[in-house]
Structure formats: C-alpha cells, structure tokens
C-alpha cells in the first residue's frame, strides 16, 4: 500500500530542503515566459526524431528561439548497444555538462558511489553548433544506465524508515532525491551553473537547447533515433540576454517529461503547496512545478491518472453537478485537499511518460478548466496507429506530412481532430494515448479520455495505400462515358453515390483521369475544381474507405489541378482564366489581363506572418484588380483576408488545407470559404461579408464582431462571439466548448440585430448522415451577461437548463423568429446539405419550429436605465 509510505517519503525529503530560507522569501520568483508551441505524438511503431522537425519549425512563431526541447520515450536498445532488459530496468540518467570540466566531479559525488553503471556514453553531437543556426553552444550530455547499489538502497530505506516499501518504488525515490542533490550542488539557480540532470527516467530522454526544439534534434544527432513517443516545445522566454538550456522544457518528474503552454497566476501558491510537502523547485518556472505536482500525486500519493487530472484541472460548475454522485464525493475531496496545488490560469500540458510499472508508454494532453489555451487532438488508426496533441492543427498536419513522406502507412489527414473540454464531465479535458505490449510487431494503441472512455475510429474502414500504382478499373469505359455527358453537379452526384462501392484504386483512377480533363481547358478546370471541392466539403457514405483517406486523395488531386496552372508570366488570351502564383514567383504579381479571373495562390512557402506572408500578397493582388482567389497549400499561414479594407463586396477567397489564425478578421463585404477545419481567432471585428467553414472553428471565434453571415458545419471551440455587437448572423451546426456569446450586445434580432443558430448536430462517420449530439450545448456558460441578440438552439428534448444561462432567459420561438431564421437555415441547407425538413424531424416525427428550437434572449429585468429614444 503506497499511501502508508506517502508521509514517510515526504518526511525523507525534509533534509533536502534549503533550510537557510525560512518564512516567505522571494524564493518563488519565476522567470517570465509566455505561451509556447507544444506538440507531441505517440505511435504504435517507433519513428525517427526528424519527424518532430517540421511541426517544430512551424511553431517558430510560438517561440522565439531562446529555448527549445524534446523528449522521447520508448526506444530500441540496439541504438545504445544494450540489452532490452537493461533498457527496461535501468534508469537512464542524462547529465548536461554546462561546464565540461565538471564531469569527473559529478561522477565522483553523485553517480559512482551510489550506482552500478551498466553502460555510459556521451551523446554524439555535430561539430559546429553554429552551422545549424545555434547562437549558444549546447552542453555536452553524458548518459548513464544505472541501478542503485543494493547496499546503498537498503541504507536509504532504513534511514528513512521506508522498510516494507516496494523496492522499485524506493529505488525510484532514491534516484529522484539524488537528482535533486546533484542539481543543488551543481546548478544553483541564482549562482554558478555547472551541470544539471536533463532526465533520469527509464527508457526516456530529454534534450534541450538555447534555440529551437528541432535544433536539439539536429545538434544531438537524433534525426534517425527512433522512439514511440515524442514531444517538443518551443519556448518564448522574454528576459535576459544570456539564456541557458536549464530553463527550457520539458521538465521531469521521474518517468515523465512535461511540456507546457501558458502560465499560471498562482505560481507562488503552487510552490508553497509543494514546499509544505518538502519539495523545492530549483528552475524557477511554472513548468517545473507542474511536473513536480504531477509526480507528487502520482508517485508519492499513488493517485490514479484520473484523480491526478482532477487535481490539476478541477471539474466545476454545471459539469460537476452532472457527475455521478460517487464521483462528486471523491472529486470534492480531491479539490479540497489539492486546490492550492491546482495551477490556475491558461495552460495546456503535454506529458510523455513511461508507465514502467504497467509496462506501457503514454502521451497525455491535459487542458485547463477554462480552456484558455489552444489545443487540438488528433487520431489516425490505420495499419499504424498514431495519436497527436498540439497547440495548433497545422503542427499535427506537419507531423503527418513528415511521417507519410517516409512511410506510406502514415496518411496526410488524421481520421479525427477534436478539442478537449477542460474540466468537463464529458471528457474531462484530457486524453491519454497508451501504448502497451500486445505481443504483435506493433505496440497496442488505445486513446481514452480522463474517465477511461475509449475514443476510436471506425475499424471497418481502411486507408488507401498510395504506394500502389493506379490500374484502370473494370468499369473504366462506362465511367469515362459519364464524364462526357454530365454537368459538374451531375458528375458530383454520380461520384458521391458511387464512392461507397468503389475501391480506392477506382477512385484514384477517376481522380487521375479528372486531372487530365481539367488540364484540357478552363471550362473543364472550373468544373473539376467545383466537383472536387464539393467532394471535399460534403458528407456522404464512403463505404469501407475512411473519409480521411478519400480526403487525402481529393487533396492531392486538387493540388495537381492547381499546380498545373500557368503562372503570371503567361498571357494566353481567352483561355487563361486561372493564373498561379507562389512564393518563389511572388514578384510576378501584376493586374489581371484579358480573361484572367482567378488567382491561385500556393501559400506553402510563405511565412506565417509579416511582410512575406501570403496575406500581404493577397492584399496587393486585390489592389491591382484581382477579385477571385484560390489559396491552398497552407501550413498555418495567418491573416488570410485581412487588410483588404472597406467595401470588398464581390471578392471571394476559397481556402484549402491548414489555414491559420485570424482568418477573415476585420473583413467588410468579401466572402471566404474554408474547405476544411479552421483555426483560432477567426472573424474578429468582422464587419460584414460571408464566412463559410466546412469543418470546425477554433478559439475566440468572432470576438468583437460587428456583422456578417457565418456558416459553420462543425463545432466551435471556446469563447465564440464574445463581445460581438451589431448584427452578426451565425449558424453553428455543431456545438461549442463553452462561453458562447458572452456579453453579446447585438441588438434585437427581430429588428435587424444579430443571432446565433445552434443546431447541436454532428455527422456520423460512415454514412454521412447527421445525428443529434448528446446535448446541444455542454458548457456551463451560455449567453452570459448578454445585453442584446439571441441564440436559437435546436433543443427538442429541452436539455438546456436555466443554470447554464447567466442573465439570459428561455423564450419560445415565435413566427417572427422563425421568419428571421429561415433564410439562414435555407442557405445552411444549400451550403451543407443540412435540410430544414430534417432538422425539424425529432425521433422520426416532424415537428413545428417552436417545438424544436428554443430562443435564448436577454432578461427583461436587465435594463438599468431608461434612455431617450432616437429623435
């Protein structure tokens, strides 16, 4: 029983504390740092370190190159020239030698007297750190595979009154305390820094540099080093001209490495909480204390993961009320005891962990209760299974892109992308990807939420194998005949209806043929783009093929069509409707000539922001006369559609691939169609125009918006429509994480004001039909403090309750309300194929609008003062 030892273990740490400082010194001074870029993945087969590269590079704008790090868990023993047993059983102590002379002293004082060293080596590095752009030489790192000497361990157990404790647990504690002593001796946070322990867990390593995360991989030559779990972190420290890698993430517990995006307001309180339990942070960052809290709850108190997550991100408000009674009781105790150790503020933790006791590796993503940091989870379950968590979707896509280049068993598009709902009763705001031994060639792979509910994709569907060459299918001739006679819409319907039965080869062959047809003339090209865009956007039955697999093929097809377009150095009269521009040829930009109408922008090589961002090129193109744009190849480039100015009616932008933050923010009149998921901060201060998203949207969507018509096929993350005013009209077919329309001030919807239609539906993965979500709105805060506008929620089962509203009121949908909603639902039907008729069907029965929709409106009581009406 672990808990009997909790107190003893804590007592044994008493003497480690710095007893020179008593009372309330400024010992918890923290180093300033902001948010960061974080990403991690767990994979059923080990993959090379180079695959953390692309996402790391794409997260440069979330760091400033002053601190980056990676962690890896689950290796091949051959890499170290050791046995599997040694790898599994020995602690792998990695020591960063800031002062290269310190090695002998470190060994003499902290390693050799206490440990049996099975294997030791220096991590090889490249010769010239400046070659890869580093400004500060990273430390040499020595590695020791060790076990604690038996006599040392038994003395430790005896001295600390730990007799009877599981020997491995006692050994863990010894390693932990030894590291602490080593760090204190060789790494005084405010004085001389000579050496520190990077990591000491089993089958795991951490490397960090003053630079970007991928430079750690490069410098320590980890490109070809294989591991099952990888995490990376780009840091954004803002203080000091001289940095050292000690402050960079990840930080260690024992067998876990934690990276963190955000910061918390109660660093002092959490530090005190730890100090009362004889734990003293040494590195002055909130990330270190986070992992120390995790380690305390895990190893000292022996909590199961669910309770650890609860202690870090407590379940609150309505979510708490919706927990089963017995869980409420346990959670209440956890919250009471650990509230001071619960990080308060915006954070996202990603933890890579070797759960050695249970012989499994884990990747854990935990988001804070208020969901203040961006976070995306993704899952791909094909021949190989991989789970990914990151601060941005494009980092996830970058990993998949990088992996699929090397191994065709990986695919460009994940089967599932989703956001966690922090501190919720639904998923607990945390997901765990677990890899264990299942006897097979690959590790067993399971994704589950905080409560252990498994998340998986349809097992009966497969991905395409794109390495196989395409063969003409049997029905080739009959399909070809269709091409000749059908209109674009007919052809789309034909493809859509047949996709269910076709195999991947047939579909790939169709795509291949289509590309050839598209290249014949502009008319064909327009049709093919339209058909494939529809195939990309709509939901339909894909039979035994994964939708992500179909999307991957569509994406590659569209890219082929776009890339075959001539650039602006050509003027080809009537037949030149489309023109292509990319980063290399950006200087060829000129006004449209002759019949030129559509500028295709390949955003791939543009920078995510700044002068070389594609958004600037788009503004220049608009100013020189272009009005229609197709933008593709995005890797998270931001600000698409920003900067065009007033009255941009008639401009249309079609966006493909991983578009970035702030898209459509500030637009006035133009239309943007996002053919896929969209990112954070969309449509801020949007004035007018149209935004259509064939997928999900991220955080703080339409913050401070003034108007515009917006249609979203999927879900929206936290804080949509906050402080929106004027007359925005928004249809959200999915739901939101929380805080929808807080402080909404959009007048009277029946009198020209704004509103949100919230349908609360989702598409079933296989058949492409929509179904109701468990609740139209799971959050505890809906329309809080709003003084204008309304929400029309599709809630036929009356699942929304008064407790979710803070100041709002339920009302019936009147005839006038329905007349106001109708044009938007009609457009929604046209765009997404979500028919009004079907929306009004509940449990197979067709109902009246007022039976299906509920209006959430401002409370009549709220008017504070009477004001003169406009003269």
């Amino acid at each position, binding site marked *: 029983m672990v808990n009997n030892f909790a107190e003893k273990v804590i007592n044994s740490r008493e003497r480690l504390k710095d007893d020179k400082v008593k009372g309330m010194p400024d010992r918890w001074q923290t180093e300033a740092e902001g948010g960061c870029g974080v990403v991690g993945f767990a994979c059923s087969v080990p993959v090379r370190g180079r695959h953390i590269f692309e996402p790391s590079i794409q997260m440069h704008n979330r760091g400033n190159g002053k601190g980056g790090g990676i962690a890896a868990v689950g290796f091949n023993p051959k890499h170290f020239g050791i046995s599997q047993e040694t790898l599994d059983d020995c602690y792998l102590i990695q020591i960063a030698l800031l002062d290269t002379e310190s090695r002998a002293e470190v060994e003499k004082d902290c390693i050799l007297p206490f440990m049996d060293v099975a294997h030791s080596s220096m991590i090889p590095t490249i010769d010239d750190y400046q070659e890869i752009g580093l400004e500060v030489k990273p430390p040499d790192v020595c590695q020791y595979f060790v076990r604690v000497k038996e006599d040392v361990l038994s003395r430790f157990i005896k001295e600390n009154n730990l007799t009877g404790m599981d020997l491995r647990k006692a050994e863990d504690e010894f390693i932990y305390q030894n590291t602490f002593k080593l760090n204190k001796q060789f790494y005084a946070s405010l004085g001389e820094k000579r050496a520190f322990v990077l990591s000491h867990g089993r089958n795991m390593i951490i490397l960090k540099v003053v630079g970007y995360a991928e430079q750690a991989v490069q410098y320590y030559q980890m490109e070809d080093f294989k591991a099952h779990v990888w995490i990376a972190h780009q840091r954004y420290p803002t203080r000091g*001209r001289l940095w050292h890698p000690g402050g960079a993430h990840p930080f260690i517990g024992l067998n876990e490495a934690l990276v963190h995006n955000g910061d918390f307001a109660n660093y002092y309180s959490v530090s005190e909480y730890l100090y009362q339990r004889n734990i003293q942070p040494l590195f002055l960052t909130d990330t270190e204390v986070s992992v120390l809290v995790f380690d305390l709850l895990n190893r000292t108190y022996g909590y199961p993961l669910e309770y650890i997550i609860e202690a870090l991100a407590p379940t609150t408000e309505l979510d708490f009320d919706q927990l089963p009674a017995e869980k409420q009781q346990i959670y209440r105790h956890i919250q009471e005891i650990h509230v001071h150790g619960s990080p308060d503020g915006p954070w996202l933790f990603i933890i890579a962990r070797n759960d050695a006791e249970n012989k499994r590796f884990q990747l854990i993503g935990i988001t804070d209760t208020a969901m203040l940091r961006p976070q995306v989870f993704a899952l791909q379950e094909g021949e190989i299974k991989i789970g990914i968590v990151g601060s941005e979707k494009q980092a996830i896509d970058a990993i998949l892109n990088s992996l699929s280049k090397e191994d065709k068993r990986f695919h460009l598009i994940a089967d599932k992308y989703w956001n966690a709902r922090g501190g919720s009763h639904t998923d607990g705001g945390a997901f765990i990807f677990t890899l264990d031994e299942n006897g097979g060639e690959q590790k067993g792979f399971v994704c589950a939420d905080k409560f252990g509910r498994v998340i998986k994709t349809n097992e009966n569907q497969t991905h395409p194998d794109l390495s196989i060459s395409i063969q003409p299918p049997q029905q080739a001739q009959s399909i070809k005949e269709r091409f000749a006679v059908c209109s674009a819409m007919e052809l789309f319907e034909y493809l859509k209806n047949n996709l269910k039965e076709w195999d991947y080869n047939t579909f790939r062959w169709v795509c291949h043929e289509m590309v050839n047809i598209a290249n014949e003339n502009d008319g064909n090209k327009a049709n093919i783009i339209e058909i494939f865009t529809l195939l990309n956007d709509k939901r339909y039955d894909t039979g035994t093929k994964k939708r992500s697999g179909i999307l991957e093929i569509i994406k590659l097809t569209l890219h082929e069509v776009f890339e075959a377009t001539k650039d602006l150095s050509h003027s080809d009269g009537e037949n030149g409707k489309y023109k292509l521009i990319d980063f290399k040829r950006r200087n060829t930009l000129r006004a449209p000539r002759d019949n030129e109408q559509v500028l295709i922008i390949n955003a791939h090589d543009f920078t995510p922001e700044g002068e070389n961002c594609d958004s600037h090129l788009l503004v220049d193109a608009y100013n020189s006369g272009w009005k229609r744009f197709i933008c593709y190849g995005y890797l998270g480039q931001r600000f698409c559609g920003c*900067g065009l100015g007033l009255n941009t009616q008639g401009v249309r932008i079609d966006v493909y691939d991983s578009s970035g933050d*702030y898209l459509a923010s500030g*637009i006035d009149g133009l239309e943007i169609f996002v053919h896929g998921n969209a990112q954070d901060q969309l449509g801020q201060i949007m004035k007018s125009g149209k935004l259509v998203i064939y997928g999900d949207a991220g955080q703080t969507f339409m913050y401070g918006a003034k108007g515009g018509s917006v249609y979203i096929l999927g879900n929206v993350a936290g804080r949509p429509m906050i402080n929106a005013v004027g007359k925005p009209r928004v249809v959200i077919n999915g739901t939101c994480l929380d805080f929808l329309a807080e402080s909404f001030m959009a007048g009277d919807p029946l009198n020209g004001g704004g509103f949100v239609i919230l349908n609360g539906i989702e598409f079933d993965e296989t058949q492409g039909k929509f179904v109701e979500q468990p609740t139209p709105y799971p959050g505890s805060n809906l329309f809080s403090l709003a003084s204008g506008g309304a929400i029309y929620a599709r809630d036929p089962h009356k699942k929304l309750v008064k407790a979710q509203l803070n100041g709002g009121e339920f009302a019936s949908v009147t005839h006038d309300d329905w007349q106001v909603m109708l044009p938007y639902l009609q457009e929604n039907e046209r765009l997404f194929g979500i028919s009004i008729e079907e929306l009004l069907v509940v449990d197979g029965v067709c109902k009246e609008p007022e039976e299906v929709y509920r209006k959430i409106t401002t409370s009549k009581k709220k008017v504070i003062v009477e004001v003169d009406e406009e003269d």
Partner: protein
Amino acid sequence: MSNNNLESVPGVAPAPSRYRNQISKYIIYRNDRCINCSKCVEVCKAGVHQQIGASSFSRPQEHKCIGVSCNACVDQCPEKALTVIINPMIEMLGDYRWTSDLILSTWYQAETGKLPPDGLEYCIGNSGGGFDRLRIKFPENPPIELKSDEISTSIPLNRRNDNAHRVEIGLPVYGGGMSYGSVGLSTILGKARAAKAWNTFTCTGEGGYHATLYPYDDHVITQVATGLFGVREDTIKRVKIVEFKYAQGAKPGLGGHLLGDKNTPDVAAMREAVAGTALFSPFPFHSVYSVEDHKKHVDWIKAMNPKALVSVKVSTPTDVDMVAIGSYYAEAHIIHIDGSYGGTGAAPNIAKKNIAMPIEYAIPKVHNFLKAEGVRDKITLIASGGIRTAHDVVKAIALGADGVVIGTAEMVALECVRCANCESGRGCPRGIATTDRELTHQFDPEWSGQRLINLLSSWHDQFVDILKKLGMKSVQELVGRHDCLEYEGVAIHGK
C-alpha cells in the same frame, strides 16, 4: 521658436472661461466709497481692474489677481474701497494631488498660453510624495549657453527603424485615450485639434472612431482595447499608431466600463451595442493569454496596416519590467506604462487607490531594466498616470521615460473642477465627460482646441526654459538623467 518639427508655431489665442463667474483664488470687494479715480487700474500689474467708460468698472478679473502678497490696489486706494480675500470656495476645490492652485494655474495657462501670475503654484501638488517631493536640480550656471530656438522638444516614436512610419512628435506629450461616450465630441475634437497643431497625437479610447475625426487621421491613435468596441479594419488602417490597451493603471485587472447612463443612443450606435446598458470590456483580451498570442495580435494589426506603429499600454504591476521587455520582443514600438494615479471617474475607488505601482517607481524600474537588457534605445517608453504639469513631464523624462501621455490635465484645461461626477452618469456639470445632448453644447471644439493648444504652449515654453537652464539642446538628452533630480533636497545618484 524652437526646433520641434512644426511647420508653424501653433497660435496662442485667448480662450477665456465659459463662465461669467469663474472660480478664482481671490475675491475682490469694491464698496461704495469708490470714487472712480482709476488708481486701481493704474497700479494693478495683473490687469484685474478694468475701467469701462468714465464712471464704471468691469467686474474685477479675479482669476488674474495675484492676491494679498501684492495688495497694491488695496493699499493705494485713496478711499480704502477695495478688499482682497482668499476665496473660501478654494478650500473645497481640488484634492491633495490636484490642488486648487494646480487647477487654477492650469486654467490660467489654458486661457492665456502663459504661466500664471505669482502666487499660484503650477509645478507641484500637495500629496507629500512622488512628483510633489521631487525637484529638478538646476546647475548654478548651465554647462552651455543656449538660445531658446536652439532647443528641441520633439521626440521620435519609432526607434526600431523598421518599415513602420517614422513618426516624430513636437512635444514629448500626447493625449490619452478617452472614448466617445466617456467624453463628448467637443472634447474629443478639441483634443484632436490641439494634437494636430502641436504635431502630436490624441487617442480614440475604446468607443470607436467618429467620422468627424477623419481630418485628423495623422494625429489619431486607434486604441484596440479588450471590448473591441468600434474597432474595425478601416479604423486600424487609417492611422499611423495603433495602441493595444491591455490594462490601465487606474484599474488593473478590470476592463473598460461605460456606465449605462452614458451609453446614449448616439454612443450605442457608434459601438453598435444596445443603448442604456452598461458596457463592460472584458479584463483580458480573450485572444491573448501569453506573449506569443500578443505577438500574433501585433502581427494581425501589421497585416492590416503594415506601416502602423504599435503601442502597448499596460498598467504597472510589480513585474512591469517583464511586461515591457516582452512587448519589445513582440515588436512593439512604444511601451506605454500607466501608473496608479491617473484614471477616469468611472474607475472604482478601491481600484484607483490601491492597485498598481505609482508611476514614479515604475519609470526607472522599466528604464533601467530595458537598459540592462540592451534594448532601451530600440523602444519608446511612454509614461502616464498622474502627469499634471510641465514639471511632472520633465521629472518623468529625467526618471527614464521618453515622453508622457496626459488625460486629466486636458480635462482640467477644459475647466473640469474634479467633482468626480463622471462616475455617476451623464451629468458632467461642465459638459466635458458627457454625451448628454444639452450638456455637451456648453462649448465647441474651437474653444476646447484653443484651450489645449494654449496649455501645451505654456508647457512647451517651460520645457525650453528648463532645458536651457540644464544646458540641453534636446529633451531627448534628459531621458534617464536621475542626476537632474533631487528628492526634497536629497540628491539622487546615478544616471
């Protein structure tokens, strides 16, 4: 006139009080023994007494009277017909920071563009600390002899030397953000007129960009605050400076707050909100929870207006130096620290008086930190929050700021009596902090503009005079010269 990048010197013109009975420090009684001999007119150097026709006098211009220390008219009146006393109302006017003398001397400068007559304190208040105990330490003789027209009061705002506008302002002073709603249009336009005349800036605050401000685009700062009220792409594109208001010193941790009563139909229309409801801005930007979010926020502004200078306005918590360096790395041009003394009437008292660091502590803290980090010359440090007088400006600069932002001083120039009624609704009795249709018609932008031009003119003359005594050719030489200050006679060491 000195070298301050002005095409022409802003014209000082009299802008007398709007009120028949202006509040003055002294009251003069003339009893019926007066024989109309005009002796008083002859002996008064301040021009208090004016004769109209042969047998009558205008009402004494009491606000010009320098008081009992002069007493010439009283002493020399052959009939002892005159009495000068201290106005008992003075005790009720002002407070320890804004003493009645400071209010009256600001009024005087706003009316005349000149320093007030003797006997009115125009440099410091009576708070017993801070700027009120700091003194400028003048050398016995200036190290170099300078003529007034050799002295520059202008400062550059873009020190990054990037592609953004190279803005230089004629005075180390610009106007703080006050929204349409918190103040009326005559106030806003008056500030804009003065900003244009002195080649400096005014700021929209968080209430939108009124169309009547368009002629002043090059002198307006668009504020992007947490409620995003009235912020649109065109309001960001049309200006040279965009200011992010993360917090204000009067109420750190609280967002903007427009009282429901001030949210008149006109104001609501500008903000596209619902009239009559109190408008709260959230405390943080919901899209900015970290420095990298902030960088993205800045990048967004630059995507819309690539040449905009970016100013970051923050309050002064104990780690304000960290915030400043973070702003620098996120490519801000201006870090604007707002200390605790300033503040709108609408800020809750508990906040106004208890949170944030006084600005005189925050300035050197930030200045020294930026210097130690080696980036001080790459960013413009602007201070605000309790800058009342020309001497306050000079002290703030000597402590380490490049320039200052003023707010309350402008309101006082427009005859604010600091009654603090701005917090209780539409009823600013002086028609400044109100959008009430009747109250706002008490004055027009010509008058308010002229008052502010006059005040800045007087401040400018004081800057030149002080720099001359210090032997400095430019106000930029004064930045961080702690050795030019003393604390009630105690020298401050270091530079």
